């Protein structure tokens, strides 16, 4: 369900500027998303493509599926709006909750399944969106904190490729961390 396509189009009616440039982003599965250029430029990758003058028709993003791309666009829009008309590069990098009013929204945004979360990390990296990368990585790190190695394996379904002797050896070498 491409629920995203409806949310993109209305944005330019809310903006004050008369001529908001738009770009079209095309996901790996062929879906097109039209967004304000300023929102798209939250992604440094897209920003460079546009600035290099290569964004004539659509910008193809073969590494991002439509589901993920729609979420990413949602993130960029929200953060761009919150930052007002300022430079995209300074919006919402800090994850310090006392200064960032979007913290609650961000927290809800990352309440997704693991698969989506990792895809978001990959997309944020590919599209070079610092804030999103920071948010998603931090989310995974928070999922890991306080867990024992066995709990980590269970949470992330990781196969234990150590033999019991090897594992005991590694534990022994790093005994201090377990105390």
């Amino acid at each position: 369900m491409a629920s995203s396509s409806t949310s993109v189009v209305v944005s330019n009616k809310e903006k004050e500027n008369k001529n908001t440039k738009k770009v079209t982003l095309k996901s790996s599965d062929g879906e097109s998303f039209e967004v304000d250029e300023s929102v798209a430029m939250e992604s440094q990758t897209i920003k460079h493509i546009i600035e290099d003058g290569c964004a004539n028709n659509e910008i193809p993003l073969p590494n991002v599926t439509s589901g993920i791309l729609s979420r990413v666009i949602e993130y960029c829009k929200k953060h761009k709006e919150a930052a007002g008309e300022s430079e995209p590069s300074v919006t919402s990098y800090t994850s310090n909750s006392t200064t960032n009013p979007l913290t609650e929204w961000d927290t809800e945004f990352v309440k997704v399944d693991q698969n989506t979360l990792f895809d978001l990390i990959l997309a944020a990296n590919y599209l070079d969106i610092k804030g999103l990368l920071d948010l998603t990585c931090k989310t995974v790190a928070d999922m890991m904190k306080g867990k024992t190695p066995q709990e980590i394996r269970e949470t992330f379904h990781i196969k234990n490729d150590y033999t019991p002797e090897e594992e005991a050896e590694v534990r022994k070498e790093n005994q201090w961390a377990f105390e």
Partner: protein
Amino acid sequence: MSLSKSSTDLSLLPRRKRRKENPTESSEPLYELINKLPDALLSEIFYRLPCRSAFQFKSVSKRWFSLISDPFFVHGLIHHRHQFSESNSSDSNSDPFTLVLQNCFSSTKNFLDLLVFPSDNSGDCVVGDDFLNFLPCIKPGVRKDNHYIIRASFNDLLLLYREVQEDFILNFKPGFCEYCICNPLTKQWITLPRLPLPFNSNLDDVIVGFICDPYSCDEEQGCKTHAHYRYKVVRFHPPTHPNTKLHMQIFSSDTGEWCNSVVSLSPRGLKPYSYISKNAGVVACNAMMHLANYTERGLQGIVVFDPFNDAERCGYIETPNSFPHDGFWSVSLCVFRGHLRIIYQGSPSIYRYQFLTADKFSIWELEDYDNGGRWCLKHKVYIKDMVLKYPDLANLASLSPMMLLPAFHPNDDKIFFFNFRNYILMWDLQTMVLKVAIELENTKENIFNSESLFQIQRQRLVDKAKSVFLLQQQSWPTPVPPLPLKFE
């Protein structure tokens, strides 16, 4: 809403068939999704973990092990922490540290007596019997000869020393002295090659400094990696007349050996009839060692030795005459956030070994090190002002010295540690509030006997410098690398 047929990579198709919360319904295993992240992104996640967790997760899988153990990863983590701490500079209490107090006061004790004071639980300190028990030879009850004592610290590493006397009785075994470097957090340690113990050597005459130089320091970002570093341990022998040369023994991690060295002091040499003050201690600052040059009239200057870049000569930093000279002052050298500091603690009595009821202290800091340096008075505090709110303490303070320990709280300029009678006190001098008082178990004896008090104070003067050590926890624990292999 159409799925394009041109997309050939099926793994990129969105999986919308089921939700992860019901794994039993899925026909495909939820298998190691996290491993589809490349190393660089997995590292990004690990950077945001506390380092203790990161060490634990080495045992999750072999891929995680090799990733976390990679020095490149450590480099990236330190860099990341450094960036993050700069943007959150208001949170200055983030770096935990440990204050280690070594009891050299009691002559009846013959084992390593430590008080360990971690910064995270304010006030909860540990009597340090177990602190270094991963080292051999740290066992209560073993003869004094074989025990390590702490001689120096650098970041989160400690340098320990022990002497073993010659054994005439059984079979003749020459005496030796031995240094050990350890990281108390990770419990790694190595011992350096032994040095012969010359006949009639006096442990107290030798001043020892320990200094590390991080190799791969990213100049631009200014962060230190400690993933690969070299270090030196320098034993300074007391200078002999005419004070133009300094004898020392240097251990270098590059060679894995000790070597003897004679270094000339800067053209004027030391001031005549002066000496290097052992009481003041030797500090490592800006990758150089600093020692205090002292005469009867007080501090004359600072001798500077750079073992990494210029091991042929010593430099000298003048201390201006505006330093206090009236009354009696004891001097300690100290480092705070990379700046060299001198602590003067004074009492009105001009007689050196009388009961030193220190009534004031002042702290000077050397600023602008690279351009010749300029001394600034940072603090000047009268003890009587400190104890205003504590009348009981005020009475006692007039009888017993409150000795300022040469270790600052690394994150807060206004917090000081004092040794008072059998207590360690932590004062906040901004509010003049006593925050923490810890009673030392083992010095309760000898406090109330006036003659012993005299002896204790004398010893305190002598041993102050080697009694307190500040361990600063790093973003990543400093490894203790093995010595270079020697092929004979």
